[in-house]
């Protein structure tokens, strides 16, 4: 009988914090500048430069720690991790080994198939990001850009508590949601502001002892993570079945080839010679400071869900989608605050917004239209200034370019014609021109009125209120 195996997975998740400046200098963390334009002597390791800690980094790290049920290490400090690589300008990374800022936490996850469990967090530590290496084909050399060097990161290290790719995705989704709610990071996997390294081992079902684990790097989408977990699980099982040993090593996942390969060479001794950084002083986190950060904690998704149910009485499914991301929930709440109609706001989000997101491949965190514009649109529909098909057309513009709907409708002349005389005149003309349809209607074909409404709307260039058209049309037909 074939043996059954269990996969044991722990994650090291790196998250780039949403500070304006780097962790140890006043350089901008903004994405996309020309190479080395966001650098200074500190983040390029110039001789004589010294680091000074960005306070906001500590606050964000604490916030994430508190939201994931960690103990805050009230006396913590930074250590140097020494290794040579060109993206690491000092050839040591300032990180935390001995006293990380957060320890012993957990997050509760629920997978799509309904598995509920707690994933324990071993620690969260603060550290600096490395620069970027680009391969130059022409020179057959590499080029270094230090714009990302010194961008603050937290590394969230879980215990080996996950057993499947599904659990891993649920854990990452939960972390992402929590951190986004805190505003501590935008957590975009593709842009690298959230990165996950997967530690994986397999063991026979029923055994206590963990197998030898490997660490997989370079996973920059949920899809890649899923593939890498499947691939690595199978690779390890194959090795075991063949009677070979799994080697403890770091492997790089190539998502295009769907395979991984070992990363290290002889020159990487993996002996980082950690020691306390003498250029930085210890951090003392008082009880008051912890209380302050706790008090500033925003309302998180689980609390929002309960409140939305009570306050707005929306369907559970809708609440789940809206509170799923901070950005969606913010748009919902701000729009509702302006227009006072939660149901309509929810309808716009659940309907048109989700449709357009799907069509354009937009992630919720990238939604960029302003609640004011959506509220204005809803108000115009309420006041029958525009009809629903015009509203949908205008919303597409709001979604894509965040245009001001009032000005746009004005400019394009999309307002519903409320001149009853003009409308009645048009309808009378349509009725006169379509005797067959009139006869059909009179003959009991209720459907025929649809054709006449359509003709009227066409003649009015879509700017009539369908309700009014219907009403007047019936009057006119009754008089025939």
């Amino acid at each position, binding site marked *: 009988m074939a043996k059954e195996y269990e996969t044991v997975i722990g994650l090291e998740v790196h998250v780039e914090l949403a500070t304006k400046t780097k962790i140890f200098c006043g350089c901008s963390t903004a994405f996309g500048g020309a190479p080395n334009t966001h650098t200074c002597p500190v983040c390029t390791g*110039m*001789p*004589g430069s010294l680091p*000074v800690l960005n306070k906001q980094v500590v606050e964000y790290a604490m916030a994430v720690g508190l939201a994931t049920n960690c103990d805050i290490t009230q006396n913590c400090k930074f250590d140097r991790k*020494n290794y040579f690589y060109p993206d690491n*300008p000092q050839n040591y990374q300032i990180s935390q080994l001995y006293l990380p800022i957060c320890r012993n936490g957990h997050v509760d996850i629920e997978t799509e198939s309904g598995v509920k469990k707690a994933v324990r967090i071993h620690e969260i530590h603060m550290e600096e990001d490395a620069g970027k290496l680009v391969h130059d084909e022409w020179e057959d050399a590499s080029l270094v850009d230090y714009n990302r060097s010194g961008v603050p990161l937290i590394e969230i290290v879980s215990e080996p508590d996950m057993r499947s790719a599904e659990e891993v995705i649920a854990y990452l989704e939960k972390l992402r949601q929590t951190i986004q709610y805190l505003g501590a990071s935008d957590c975009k996997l593709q842009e690298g502001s959230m990165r996950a390294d997967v530690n994986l081992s397999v063991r026979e079902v029923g055994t206590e002892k963990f197998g030898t684990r490997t660490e997989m790097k370079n996973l920059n989408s949920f899809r890649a993570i899923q593939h890498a977990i499947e691939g690595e699980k199978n690779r390890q099982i194959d090795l075991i079945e063949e009677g070979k040993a799994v080697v403890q090593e770091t492997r790089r996942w190539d998502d295009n080839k769907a395979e991984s390969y070992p990363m290290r060479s002889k020159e990487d001794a993996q002996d980082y010679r*950690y*020691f306390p950084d*003498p250029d*930085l002083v210890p951090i003392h986190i008082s009880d008051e400071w912890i209380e302050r950060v706790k008090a500033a904690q925003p309302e998180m998704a689980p609390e929002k869900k309960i409140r939305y149910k009570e306050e707005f009485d929306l369907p559970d499914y809708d609440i789940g989608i809206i509170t799923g991301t901070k950005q969606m929930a913010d748009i919902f709440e701000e729009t509702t605050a302006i227009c006072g109609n939660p149901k309509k706001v929810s309808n716009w989000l659940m309907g048109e917004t989700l449709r357009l997101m799907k069509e354009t491949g937009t992630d919720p965190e990238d939604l960029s239209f302003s609640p004011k514009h959506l509220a204005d649109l809803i108000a115009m529909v309420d006041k029958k200034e525009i009809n629903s098909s015009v509203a949908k057309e205008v919303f597409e513009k709001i979604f894509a370019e965040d245009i001001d709907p009032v000005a746009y409708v004005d400019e394009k002349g999309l307002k519903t014609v409320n001149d009853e005389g003009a409308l009645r005149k048009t309808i009378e003309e349509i009725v006169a021109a379509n005797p067959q349809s009139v006869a059909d209607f009179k003959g009991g074909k209720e459907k025929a009125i649809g054709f006449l409404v359509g003709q009227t709307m066409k003649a009015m260039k879509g700017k009539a209120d369908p309700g009014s058209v219907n009403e007047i049309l019936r009057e006119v037909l009754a008089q025939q």
Partner: protein
Amino acid sequence: MSDILSLTAVELGKAIKAGEYTAVQAMQAVLDQIDKTEETVHAYVTIDKEAALAKAAEAQKKIEAGELTGPLAGVPVAIKDNMCTEGMLTTCSSKILSNFVPTFSSEAVINLEKAGAVVIGKTNMDEFAMGSTTETSYYGVTRNPRNPEHVPGGSSGGSAAAVAAQECFFALGSDTGGSIRQPASYCGVVGLKPTYGTVSRYGLIAYGSSLDQIGPLCKDVTDCATILETIASHDPKDSTSMKREDTNFTEALVKDVKGMKIGIPKSYFGEGLQEDVKAAVLAVADKLKELGAEVEEFDLAHVKYAIPTYYTIADAEASSNLERFDGVKYGYRAQDADELHRMYKKSRSEGFGPEVKRRIMLGSFVLSSGYYDAYYLKALRVKALIKKAFDDAFAKYDIILGPVAPTTAPKLGCSLSNPMQMYLGDIYTISVNLAGLPGISVPCGTDSNGLPIGVQMIGDCFAEKKLIRAAYTYEQAAKEV
């Protein structure tokens, strides 16, 4: 003009303010002296005569316009070559930085320039401040102006020699284990290592970050207090920089030690101490006693453990601090290495001298897996005990008095062959760095060969004023004899 060179920095500043000399004349006098003596002494790595004269002319204008009024306005200064100077070569006396031109200046240099002092050039040193003789410099040895067959001490040997040879009016040095005080003693000048955190380390190319401090090398105690007052600052760019209110050090230039309690560690006068050094230092104690101080011998704990503790900590930090010299961003890159790790190894092996490599190897070893606890953490624990020993001493005494070094300046070429012996010479100075204390070296006579002897006074943290008062009192009294 003939005696301008014999003025102290403060005297020169006054003379410039009074219109007796201009800053340009002062600079020219120094440059002329450099032309005469530099061939023998070799105190400098880099001198930019034109820039120095131009900056002196600029300072003179500002002095005349009343914009610069401080005591050091217009005074020429030499800077140790491990402090960054914008636009001026900064080598740490190493091949690996042979082409490095910083784009910013160290905070201490900026403070001096704000006060109107004019930089002459950069002084020679032991490579990356690792050494006690200035013989490990890639750019050749510096000779002791008092006797060119002898070393000037180190690592700030170039700065001490430049002051002694009148090739500047004062200089900045750095002190990680005695690197200001010992060359000051060997060259017969005054040198002070301030309390850790008093002078910003921003722009100082680090050797042992938890031990490094910048301080003055100068002609007398008045200059010393004046310079320290100018360079001390709380710098938000240096996380270890201290906020101090009491940096008006010149107020302590008072000739009075009545009631001052001076402790003399018995173990500082044991085996290995040159007889005439011992006699000269004890004579200082007698003099201060005569002037009203209470002098007492005592047992300072853990003295013998200071050297191994120091070399463990300093070399561990150095091994990490010097990793950035890799041929990627600045400095020397070996040309014929196209594989990354070969490039690293070749650049560093060709760029660093033997003493630097020795310390990097030791430092890397004591931090490596399996040894960290036994060596590095153990040293940090002993450091705590050494600090405690000083705390106990300063509960009883205002200052501690002793020699700076066991001997006067050795002959050139005698020290490097036995590094261990050289390290032992640091016995009296390094515990001061481990405990973060201030220490001053003041000339107190010569040995039978006419080589200068220095006395060291050590104060509690932030007690520079007590040191300055005791040193000034002794200096003034010695003049009267």
